[in-house]
């Protein structure tokens, strides 16, 4: 049985304008206005262009092509190859970030001498500007002069210099390593913050019940960290899927497409090929997938979201 539509609307309106909703609206207004002024237009603009055959070298012929750009992108072999590289980059990066940041958070949650110093030091990679970071790693990985080859050689681990980024099997893992190195500090902090908010009572109660350190870790720490994991997973997945800077600075998609990921392809399509239409379509496909993943993560790990 449904209530009459009129009453329903009236009821909902009343609810919408009660004190709670009014204050909620007021609290949310600033953030929404910022996004409305700055972020909404770009998003709609690129959505709009994704329906046109917009090639900048043909400024006078820009037909509306419905979903042609999407079809073109989805039937492009290179796109699917890029997708699989993006997937492996994202999976290995996010997994490494989760493991490392959890370990670091556990460490920093203990009290020991030098903890504050250590926690300051781990933030350094995060503070190096992206460009400097990319050039730093480029030089480290350099097969001729690089610090990585130098170190391994001096330690006797290798007896001749190895090709790093130029070896197409190593390219993605190496770029992922540089990415992880820079992203771990934030992830560790987010997990640590969550860890700090676990009430001590829980541990005390469990201890009284005779649970040992590991049991307490499994049954209290890990479940309580769910919100932290969720934040890290969503944020890092989004960052990894869309990551562009290191691909640009280290390999430009090379060697031979070995690091030709989706974000790189979007860049090439937009700025090198000047095809804004297909570039936008590709971006929207990627955005949709990213959103779906985020939604999935929230639904799985989020408590009340």
């Amino acid at each position, binding site marked *: 049985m449904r209530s009459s539509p009129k009453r329903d609307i009236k009821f909902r309106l009343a609810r919408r304008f009660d004190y709670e909703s009014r204050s909620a609206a007021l609290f949310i207004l600033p953030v929404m206005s910022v996004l409305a002024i700055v972020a909404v237009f770009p998003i709609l603009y690129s959505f709009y262009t994704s329906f046109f055959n917009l090639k900048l*070298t043909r400024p006078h012929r820009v037909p509306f092509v419905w979903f042609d750009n999407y079809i073109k992108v989805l039937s492009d072999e290179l796109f699917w190859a890029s997708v699989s590289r993006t997937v492996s980059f994202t999976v290995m990066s996010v997994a490494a970030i989760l493991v490392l940041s959890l370990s670091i958070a556990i460490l920093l949650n203990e009290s020991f001498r030098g903890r504050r110093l250590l926690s300051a030091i781990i933030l350094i990679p995060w503070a190096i500007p992206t460009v400097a970071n990319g050039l730093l790693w480029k030089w480290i990985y350099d097969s*001729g002069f690089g610090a990585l080859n130098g170190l391994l050689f001096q330690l006797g681990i290798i007896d001749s210099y190895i090709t790093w980024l130029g070896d197409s099997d190593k390219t993605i893992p190496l770029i992922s390593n540089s990415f992880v190195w820079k992203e771990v500090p934030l992830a560790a902090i987010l997990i640590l913050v969550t860890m700090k908010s676990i009430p001590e009572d829980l541990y005390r109660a469990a201890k009284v019940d005779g649970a040992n350190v590991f049991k307490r870790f499994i049954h209290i720490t890990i479940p309580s960290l769910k919100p932290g994991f969720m934040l890290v997973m969503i944020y890092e997945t989004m960052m990894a899927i869309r990551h562009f800077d290191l691909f640009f600075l280290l390999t*430009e998609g*090379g060697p031979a497409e070995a690091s030709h990921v989706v974000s790189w392809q979007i860049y090439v399509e937009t700025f090198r090929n000047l095809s804004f239409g297909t570039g936008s379509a590709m971006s929207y496909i990627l955005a949709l997938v990213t959103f779906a993943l985020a939604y999935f993560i929230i639904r799985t790990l989020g408590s009340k979201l």
Partner: protein
Amino acid sequence: MSNQFKNLNRRDFLKKTAAAGALGALGANGLITQAMAAGDTVHFMAWSAAVDLVKSHVAEFQKVTGINVNYSNAPWAQYRDNLITKFVGNAPIDMMWVSDAWLPEWAEAGWIKPVDKFDNLMKYNAEAEKFCNDSMTYKGSQYGLTYYTDFMAFLYDDEALKKAGISNPPKSWDEVTEQCLKIKNAGIAEYPLMLALAQESWLIEFLAAMTYSHGGNFTDDKGNSIMQDPKEGAVRALQWVVDAVHKHKIVSPASVEIGELTGLKAFASGNHAFALEPKYRMRTLNDPKQSKIAGRVKQALMPMGMDGSHATVGWMRFHGMSASAAADKTRAENTARLIEWFGGKANGEYKFQKYLFTDIGAGFGVKPLFNDADVQNAYNSYADVNIIKEQQALARKKDVVTPWFGEWNEVHGSSWQAAILQKATPAEAMAKAGKKWDELKKEMG
């Protein structure tokens, strides 16, 4: 936990936050927009090269003409993207540096306009290299004046060759292989030839030099692809590189990740005996402050392939005029004056091109400068002018510069790399590049 404790820390925290906020407020002064420059300002956009020279030349221009110039620059690696964004966003740009490879794209997109109608610019054509004038011309119109021009040179370390008992530099690519093997076997260099084949804007210049010297072309007179034809040099050139890496091991397998700058540093630190490098690098390579092989670096003509010649690739960059400047009479005239100041004569001499050459060795596009005493002295101190002239005469324009160059270039570059990584045969790789060319030509030609 005591309340007091909690509050103290919170107050403490707020104090710090407030301090940081005060700093932010201080900076609000910086928020007040500087008054927009007057309308007669010429907006000049360049990549960050020879920044001080440009600034000093701009300062002199302002003094002499009274025209205000707003000069800004962006890193080379991001310059093109930056300009495209600004063109699309209609930001004020009047004069900018353009690479020859971008000319058709930018002209078709309507971002830059010809400068044919400015007699004060056209009069310099008589003294300019024909190669340069051709490279600035698209569909019969000229789009600017030369900023700098250069070509790909074959360089060698004289001492490394002598140590291996080689008296003359190689004349053909087969001889390159032989000499490299000799040098390698003598233990002088693990990879005697340095090729920088990473994905970057330099890649096409290296590949074109290899292809042209193997007697090849990418396209025929009508602009149809012939790069996949095994008799046309590109396939042979690629085969030579693949063999050099895998069969003879005279070129590093890491070459696909080595960019021009890194390769230069490797050659300068004495790791190789031969290198393909832009000619102007000889200045750096023979400067003892920057190079361990200074004084030993010499130039030979580009080796010949089977049915080949000593041909190489040349390139040039020019000062162009934006469409928005061209649309306004006064702006266009002011911009043309600035183009003349840089690409033509300033106060009666080719000052900018000359200083650019003496400062960093970048080649000039005007012939009379070869007779300048300072230029001759500089050249003679690190290079052989005769070989330079001979090679420069054999430098060819890239036959792939079209509105679809950028798109093809991506596929072409990664095809070469795929072959070098042995993920495709040279024939397959060039077939892929050729197919892409045909598609693009059909779509956009």
